[in-house]
C-alpha cells in the first residue's frame, strides 16, 4: 500500500490552498485526489468577477482565481490525480479511491485533509409542490450548462431562493437573452450578498419577492407556469397568489457541506453547519483528519476559504511534526442568543495560535447590535455592528489578552442596543 504524508480529498479552492501550504512548510509527499477532469472545483464555472479582493488585492473571475493556485501547484510539483473518486475514508487514515487507469486503489496517509466542498439543496430537499415536470433545476446546474457547456437552459426564468448562485444566474441568463421574471425568497431577507442584489437584480430590474415562495408548479412534461404566494412565517397567505408563465425554475435554496465520506468514517458533524466539529487546529474528532473550506461550513467568499485552508494546512504540518498536544481539556465555543453557529466549536488553549479568527453567523437580521463574547459571566469583549445578517459571515478575533488559563466556555450572543 502506497504511503503519503498527507492526502487531500478534493482539488477545489480549499484543497489547493491546503496542499500548497503543507508543501511550502516542508512536507513532501502530498497527494490531491480530485473527482473532476480538472483541478479548480466550482470556481471554474463561476466566470463572474468578485473573487480575490482579499487574497490577491485585485478582482478576479473564478477561473482566474483557480488558475493562479493550479499554476503554483504545478510549479511546486505537488502530486494530484484527476477523475479519481474517493469511495471510502477509514479512521486509520487509509483511503480507497477509484479511477479508470488504476482501478480500485487503497493508500494510507499520516494526515488527511477533507476538502470536498458542498452541494446544492435540490427539489428533493425542499418539499416543492405541484407536478414534477422538466425545467426545474438548481442554479448551479444551470450555471455549469451555460458557462462550461454553452447551453442556455431556458428563456423565461423564475428563481426560487435568493442565494448568491441564483442571483448570479439571474444576471447571467439575462445577459444571454433570457427573461428573468423574478426571484422569490421565503424569508423576509435575502440569502445572498447585498452587492449581488444590487448588481444582479437591481441593475436589470428583476423583482425580488421577499416573504414569498412557490406554491404550485404547473406543466406536464415541461414546466409551464408557477404560482407564488406571500407567506406569513412560512405559511402561504390565501389571496396573494401570482402566476408566472415560465419554461425554467431555478432553485437557489442553500448549500450543504458534502460529508458522506466523513460521516461513514465516524467524524462527528455539527447539526447547524452540517460540517465536522473541529478544534482550533481544524482537526476533527479523529486525530490526524482535518477539514477546511465549504465541507466545514459554507463560506460567502472564496477568499475566506483560502485563508481558512492555509491555516488548516499549517495545523496539519504542526501535527505531522508532533507539535499539537492532544488533550480532553477543551474550551467550548457556544452560540447563544441570536447566533446560529460558531467555528471552531472547540479550543485547546495549549495549541492556540493567536490572533485566532472565530467565524460566526447570526440567525436573523439585526440592526445596531453588539456581538458579546463572554467567559462564564465575564464579558471578554463587545463588538458594535450596524448590520448583521445570516447571509453575511462575521468574524471576530481572539487575542492572547482575551484568554486565560481558567476559561470555562466562550459564549457568544447578540445584544440589540436600545
Amino acid at each position, binding site marked *: 500500500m502506497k504511503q503519503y504524508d498527507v492526502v487531500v480529498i478534493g482539488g477545489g479552492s480549499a484543497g489547493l490552498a491546503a496542499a500548497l501550504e503543507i508543501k511550502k512548510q516542508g512536507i513532501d509527499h502530498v497527494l490531491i485526489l480530485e473527482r473532476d*477532469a*480538472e483541478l479548480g472545483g466550482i470556481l*471554474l464555472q463561476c*466566470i*463572474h*468577477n*468578485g473573487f480575490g*479582493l482579499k487574497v490577491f488585492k485585485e*478582482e*478576479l*473571475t473564478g*477561473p*482566474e482565481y*483557480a*488558475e493562479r493556485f493550479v499554476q503554483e501547484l504545478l510549479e511546486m510539483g505537488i502530486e494530484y490525480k484527476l477523475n479519481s473518486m474517493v469511495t471510502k475514508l477509514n479512521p486509520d487514515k487509509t483511503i480507497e479511491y477509484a479511477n479508470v487507469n488504476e482501478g480500485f486503489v487503497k493508500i494510507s496517509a499520516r494526515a488527511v485533509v477533507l476538502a470536498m466542498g458542498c452541494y446544492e439543496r435540490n427539489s428533493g430537499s425542499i418539499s416543492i409542490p405541484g407536478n414534477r415536470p422538466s425545467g426545474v433545476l438548481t442554479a448551479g446546474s444551470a450555471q455549469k450548462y*451555460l*458557462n*462550461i*457547456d*454553452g447551453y442556455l437552459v431556458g428563456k423565461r426564468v423564475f428563481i426560487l431562493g435568493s442565494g448568491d448562485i441564483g442571483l448570479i444566474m439571474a444576471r447571467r441568463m439575462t*445577459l*444571454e437573452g433570457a427573461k428573468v421574471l423574478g426571484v422569490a425568497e421565503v424569508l423576509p431577507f435575502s440569502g445572498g*450578498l*447585498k*452587492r449581488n*442584489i*444590487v*448588481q444582479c437584480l437591481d*441593475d436589470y430590474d428583476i423583482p425580488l419577492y421577499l416573504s414569498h415562495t412557490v406554491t404550485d408548479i404547473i406543466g406536464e412534461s415541461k414546466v409551464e407556469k408557477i404560482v407564488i404566494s406571500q407567506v406569513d412565517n412560512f405559511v402561504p397567505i390565501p389571496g396573494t397568489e401570482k402566476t408566472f408563465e415560465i419554461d425554467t425554475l431555478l432553485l437557489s435554496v442553500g448549500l450543504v457541506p458534502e460529508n458522506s465520506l466523513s460521516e461513514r468514517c465516524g467524524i462527528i458533524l455539527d447539526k447547524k453547519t452540517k460540517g465536522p466539529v473541529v478544534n482550533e487546529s481544524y482537526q476533527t474528532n479523529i486525530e490526524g483528519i482535518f477539514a477546511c473550506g465549504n465541507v466545514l461550513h459554507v463560506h*460567502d*467568499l472564496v477568499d475566506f476559504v483560502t485563508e481558512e485552508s492555509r491555516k488548516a494546512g499549517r495545523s496539519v504540518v504542526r501535527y505531522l511534526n508532533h507539535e499539537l498536544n492532544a488533550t480532553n481539556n477543551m474550551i467550548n465555543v457556544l452560540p447563544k442568543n441570536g447566533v446560529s453557529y460558531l467555528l471552531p466549536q472547540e479550543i485547546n488553549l495549549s495549541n492556540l495560535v493567536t490572533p485566532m479568527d472565530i467565524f460566526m453567523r447570526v440567525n436573523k437580521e439585526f440592526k445596531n447590535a453588539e456581538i458579546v463574547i463572554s467567559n462564564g459571566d465575564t464579558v471578554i469583549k463587545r463588538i458594535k455592528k*450596524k*448590520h448583521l445578517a445570516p447571509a*453575511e459571515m462575521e468574524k471576530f478575533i481572539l487575542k492572547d489578552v482575551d484568554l486565560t488559563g481558567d476559561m470555562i466556555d466562550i459564549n457568544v450572543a447578540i445584544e440589540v442596543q436600545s
Partner: protein
Amino acid sequence: MIEKLICIACPMGCHLEVDVEDDYRVEGNQCNRGVLYAKKELTNPTRIVTSTVVIKGGIYRRLPVKTNGEVSKKLIFKVMEEINKVEVSSPIKCGDVIIKNVLNTNIDVVASRSM
C-alpha cells in the same frame, strides 16, 4: 439630497449615504473605494462584463472571458453582442486579448482562463 446606495466595490456591501449637493460626500463607507464608487454610480455607473465565447479544440466548448476594465452600464448588452460574435481556437492563455478595444471603449475583452 441624500442618496442611499449599497457599495458593490467589494463583498462588504457597505450602506452608503451620499450627499449629492455636497460634492458626493459619503458616509457609511469603510474604505476609499466607497467614495469613488458613490460618485461614479450616481454620475456614470460602470461594470465589468463577464461571459463566454465559443472555443474549438478545448477541453470544454466555452471559454470564459471578461472586460479588462469597467464599461458603462449602458453598453453592457452591446458588449455582449460583440462577445457573442466571437469564436476562438485552443490553445488560449489566460489574459489573451479576445476583442481589442471593444466598441471603442479602450477596454479589451480578454480570456479569463487558459484552455
